[in-house]
Structures are given as structure tokens and as C-alpha cells.
């Protein structure tokens, strides 16, 4: 029998009519794939009406965060109507607070502003996940790993050697890509910045910070060289 593990459910609005719906969807995917892959699961919101009891039981069996594009709060209202109370309700327009204008609905038109907006929202969702887990998950119960959407698997990791042992960090290449996009040069003066960024997404043991600092800088140099920077 598999050991039960507390996971937070994240339900995004689909928000097809507005760019914030696309941001909500992409930020949710980022948390599932990269930021908190082992602590989160998701479910398609429309499944509450089209699916069965298992789907409708989702918010009762997981502490659940809804992520809505706008103040109509469809994900929150739909989840609470069909499944149960949510533990936290986030709204993209509130998280962005008037910033990041002119985002696009379709990924064909995505640019730097869209990418930044997705990061801001994803990091807020991840912080909320941490808060719920620290509080013990709220009123909801524990969901077994098999309860989750089979698609919520982590991104392939990048490997670094720490004190002679190989350590895999989920989504490391994506984190490095983000650092490159923001102009962080792969040089010793930025080693703390690289470590601090990775530490947002991966729990770096306090006793090994120096080893991680060096290993991550070397890995970032290799990544930058491969990217032609």
C-alpha cells in the first residue's frame, strides 16, 4: 500500500476570454512542473460537471487553492459549488496589481511581459502552497499520490555534484534559462544570486550552501556556454 502524502490541489480557471486566464493556466502548470512538483496536484475545472464522484470529491480530499484570472472567481465558485470549500483563493489581477499590461491570450503572441507575469503568479501560488502545508493543509484530508492528475509530473531535473554525490534539482535548466533571460552573467560575482534563485525552488540544506553555491555556478556556466551566451 502506498504511503499517503499530503498534496495541495490547485485548480485554475480556464479564462479563455482574457489574458489573465492564460497566465493563470501557465502559472499553475509551472508550480506543478517546476516549483512544487511533489507537493501539488491539479484537476481540470470543467471536469466537476462532466466527471464523476471522484472529481467532485477533489476539494474534500485535498487542501485546495483556486487561481482565477479575474474577479468573477469562476474557479473558486465552481469548486465550492461542486466539490467543497477551498483553502485559499487567488486572483491574477490582484496578484499583478495593475502591472504587466498588454499580456496576450495566445502563446503565439507571448513576450517578456507575459513570462514575467507568469513567474510572479507562480511564485505567489508556490508560497501559498508552502503556507498551507506548514499549517497542516487546512480542514481537508490527505490525498494519496494516486489521487492526483497523472499529468502533474515534475520537469526533468538537472544534476550537480555536491560533496561527491550527484543531486538532481527539478527544472534546473528552466531556472537557469530564467536567470539568463534576466541578464545574470555566469561569473563568480553572481554566485549568491544563482544560489538564492535555485533555493526559491529547491530546499538547499543550510550546512551545504557553500558546496551548492560553487556547484551551481559551475553548472550555470556550462548552461550559459551551451546556450551560446
Amino acid at each position, binding site marked *: 500500500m502506498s504511503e499517503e502524502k499530503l498534496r495541495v490541489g490547485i485548480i*485554475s*480557471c*480556464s*479564462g*479563455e*476570454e*482574457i489574458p489573465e*486566464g492564460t497566465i493563470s*493556466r*501557465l502559472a*499553475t*502548470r*509551472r508550480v506543478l*512542473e517546476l516549483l512544487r512538483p511533489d507537493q501539488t496536484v*491539479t*484537476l*481540470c*475545472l*470543467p*471536469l*466537476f*460537471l*462532466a*466527471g464523476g464522484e471522484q472529481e467532485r470529491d477533489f476539494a474534500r480530499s485535498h487542501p485546495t487553492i483556486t487561481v482565477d484570472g479575474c474577479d*468573477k472567481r*469562476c*474557479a473558486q*465558485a*465552481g469548486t465550492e*459549488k*461542486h466539490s467543497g470549500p477551498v483553502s485559499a483563493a487567488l486572483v491574477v489581477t490582484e496578484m499583478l496589481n495593475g502591472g504587466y499590461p498588454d499580456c496576450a*491570450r*495566445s*502563446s*503565439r503572441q507571448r513576450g517578456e511581459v507575459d513570462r514575467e507575469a507568469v513567474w510572479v503568479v507562480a511564485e505567489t501560488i508556490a508560497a501559498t502552497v508552502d503556507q498551507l502545508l506548514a499549517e497542516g493543509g487546512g480542514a481537508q484530508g490527505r490525498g494519496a499520490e494516486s489521487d492526483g*492528475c*497523472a*499529468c*502533474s509530473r515534475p520537469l526533468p531535473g538537472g544534476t550537480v555534484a555536491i560533496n561527491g554525490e550527484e543531486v538532481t534539482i527539478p527544472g534546473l535548466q528552466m531556472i537557469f534559462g530564467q536567470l539568463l533571460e534576466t541578464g545574470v552573467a555566469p561569473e563568480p560575482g553572481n554566485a549568491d544570486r544563482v544560489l538564492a534563485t535555485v533555493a526559491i525552488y529547491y530546499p538547499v540544506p543550510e550546512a551545504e550552501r557553500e558546496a551548492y553555491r560553487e556547484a551551481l555556478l559551475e553548472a550555470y556556466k556550462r548552461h550559459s556556454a551551451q546556450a551560446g551566451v
Partner: protein
Amino acid sequence: MDPAQKVLVIPCSGIGKVHGLISREATYLVTDELAPGQTETLCLALLVKGDEQALARVRSQPCITVDGCPKACAQKNVTLVRGESDGAFQVLQVLKQHRGVQPGSASSLNEAGWTVARELAELVRDKVAELAGCEVTS
């Protein structure tokens, strides 16, 4: 159909697999590029919530659904509101003609994914033209 009425194209936007993203992007190709004057989209979540304005639009306008998987969430949600939709498409209809391709991920489409999305969008555009009884204009 009333030519002044726009056709609602409603994707499932499924968040778990690439198929949901293909349904979403195919919809934007129709509403933004292939038939912008004849079509518009609607947040499917509004139907799940039971929003009165959304329910009224679905009941009064022609509807085409675009689903990522056989669970057909978009089609089922629309059918619950108004009965059968005017057209129902699934990503797998097109994907099965491209056996073995990896169209991307739930977060982004690659070239093969965009090819599938565009072919699906063209099927939807043709259905819009059929409903309108004329050629659609981009």
C-alpha cells in the same frame, strides 16, 4: 443562423495534457485569425460556475466545442446548458492523422503541435462557414 450572431467556439482548455492546450490555441486561431468576424470564445469556467450571462449566450448563440480528450468536458458542459452543440470537435480527430508525433507539453506547443492546432482550427472554421451558410472571412 442569424448572420449577425457570432458563433461561440468553446475549448476545454484541459490543464493536464498537451491536448487541452491544442484545443485552446486552435480556438484562438479561429477567433483571432481564421474567422474573427464570425466567431468569439467564452470562458468555459463561467458555465461551470453557472454565470447567468454566459448561460444566456450559450442558449442564444450557435456553439462549437473543441475538446482535448474523450472526456469531452466542453461538449458535456454545453450540452447540460442547451442540449446538443452545433458542432463538436476533439483534438484526437486530427492527432490520429499524425501518429507518433510529440506535439509539445501542457505548457507549450512545438512545431508539430502548432500544425495539429492549425488543422483543427481549419476544421472548426469550415463548420462555422457551414453554419453561416457562406464563406467565412479572415
